[in-house]
């Protein structure tokens, strides 16, 4: 009889291990669903916030910025922009003031020509994001 490490054994470990950990991931995902309501600030998701998220996506803000650390690293983190820029007015003012042709030699943000309602929605969205419990991330106000 051979005391061998066979391909069949390896294959069984692959199938067994994969199913095992898939189930574990499912269990942890289920628990995460249960835990979200206390952390995800969902109560703050108004019609305006929803519209703000849509604008965020349709203008691909994530293509330059990061949100909760995810996205691009060309422009500042915006998860805590609500706090850093001084609330909704600060956010709206910044977006409104971007020059159409950019700032010579500097990384430039487009002028999106948002309506007052759209600006408000975006600001609401960023306010909502700043209220998500991110376990104390980022380490400081600079993001």
């Amino acid at each position: 009889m051979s005391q061998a490490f066979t391909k069949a054994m390896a294959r069984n470990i692959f199938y067994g291990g994969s199913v095992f950990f898939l189930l574990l991931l499912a269990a942890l995902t289920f628990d995460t669903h249960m835990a979200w309501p206390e952390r995800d600030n969902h109560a703050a998701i108004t019609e305006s916030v929803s519209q703000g998220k849509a604008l965020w996506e349709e203008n691909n803000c994530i293509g330059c910025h990061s949100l909760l650390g995810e996205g691009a690293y060309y422009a500042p983190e915006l998860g805590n922009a609500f706090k850093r820029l001084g609330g909704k007015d600060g956010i709206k003012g910044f977006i409104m003031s971007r020059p159409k042709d950019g700032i010579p030699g500097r990384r430039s943000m487009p002028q999106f020509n948002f309506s007052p309602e759209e600006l408000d929605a975006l600001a609401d969205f960023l306010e909502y994001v700043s209220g998500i419990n991110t376990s104390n991330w980022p380490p400081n106000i600079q993001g």
Partner: protein
Amino acid sequence: MSNAKLAIFLPFVESARVVSMNEKETIVVDTASAGVAAPDALVRYPPGDLAIWIFILAELLVFGVFFSSYAFNRMNHVELFNQYQATLDRDAALINTLALLTSSYFVIRGVVAAREGNNRLCAHWIWGAVAMGGVFLVVKSAEYSHHIGAGISLSTNEFYMFYLSLTFFHFMHVILGMVILAAVAVKAGQGGYSREDHVGVETGASYWHMVDLVWLILFPLVYVMR
């Protein structure tokens, strides 16, 4: 590779004759023709497929990391850990310990039966071990439903996070172990093992003993030690 060198690698293999060695992965040891009585427990070491030992070591590594994390975390939250440890049902844990120890004993009897070529007896003992594993699952599930009923989850506090994570990870390994043992028992029931070839029984047994060993560390660490 000479037989002498091989003897160093397999100290318990007496008079083994190397039949062939391809790719260094597969060392085929023909003990039967070397005239050594196969049922001798010392002949094969470690028992069972080599692959399972790699994974047993990997498993022990992960559990080891979990246990260390628990211990490290406890150091920083002694009061909290002591306080909530008192809410655990130690009687249930004791029953579970006895259940697993008994199941391991049954598994050993099953391996002995297989070594004697007695498939039916082997199957009975292994099914018995599976049943004891089932007792563990039932008792542990009762504990969990009590916790869930009290509104406890992974997010309640650090202690419960570790307690639930550690025991649930182990719980899933008990299930996996039972599946492996059931597969062994089914094959034995069909007369699939023999005196010469019962590696599957040894493999399943080794895995189950690991699952038992992990509980024997988990129980005092999480339930008892203050």
